[in-house]
């Protein structure tokens, strides 16, 4: 049951990325290019998703969650943003484009998995270091 709803969620999520234009790196870069010919479409994707999410996550706002805003969060997000701006791919759209048989998306995803493995390795290494 849990796996079925997760599958349907992934499917609808991916179709949403395709419908919205997020699965097209050219369109993503058009959104990030505020100094050039700016395509504000992706602000509408965020608005639509948050409009629904705001009600769905009402319960989540009452749950305890992590509050710390530290160098890992900000530094990691900046590094992610640089990569996002370079190719126009973030994880979801890249995976959808892999499913569409786009070779360049597969190259990106393999490198992304390598980055995640590198992180996991670095974390294990730093845990072994004396404090």
């Amino acid at each position, binding site marked *: 049951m*849990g796996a079925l*709803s997760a599958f349907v969620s992934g499917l609808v999520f991916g179709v949403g990325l395709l419908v919205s234009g997020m699965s097209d790196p050219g369109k993503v870069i058009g959104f990030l290019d505020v100094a050039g010919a700016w395509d504000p479409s992706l602000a*509408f*994707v965020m608005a639509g998703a948050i409009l629904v999410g705001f009600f769905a996550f009402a319960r*989540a706002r009452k749950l305890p969650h992590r509050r710390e805003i530290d160098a890992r*969060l900000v530094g990691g997000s900046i590094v992610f943003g640089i990569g996002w701006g370079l190719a126009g791919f973030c994880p979801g759209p890249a995976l959808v484009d892999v499913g569409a*048989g786009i070779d360049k998306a597969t190259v990106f995803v393999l490198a992304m998995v390598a980055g995640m493995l590198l992180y996991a390795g670095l974390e294990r290494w730093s845990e072994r270091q004396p404090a």
Partner: protein
Amino acid sequence: MIDWAHFTPWTSLAGGILIGCAAALLFLSSGRIAGISGIAGGLLTPRRADIAWRIAFLLGLLLAPVAFRLFGRLPFPRIDAGFGTLLTAGLLVGLGTSYGSGCTSGHGVCGLSRLSPRSLVATMAFMAAGMVTVFLVRHAWAP
């Protein structure tokens, strides 16, 4: 100036609503957050026992183009980045989303929906970094 030729407010809004519904379905059915980098990254660290739902979600994501094709022609993505740029970008996205605990979906959609201050800071950081990167590559450093 706005690129009116490529501006698609209605389909983008509709796609966003679908994304929101998908995140809502996952959260309301299992209490999980639809953050793609986290779902994928969780498969790489074997200490977690919750593997089936992650694979099911990612399988759905990968099969989305197949479902989309039943209703219309698949949009063709424009990817200007070459091989080296794709490798660099992928590595940075993998590392950055791991350290920052999320990406456009986890922080940008789910986090902002639940009014998380962490996600607001993360979203502003990656949006700003993405915009600066595109500015440097397209305008400042362009030949």
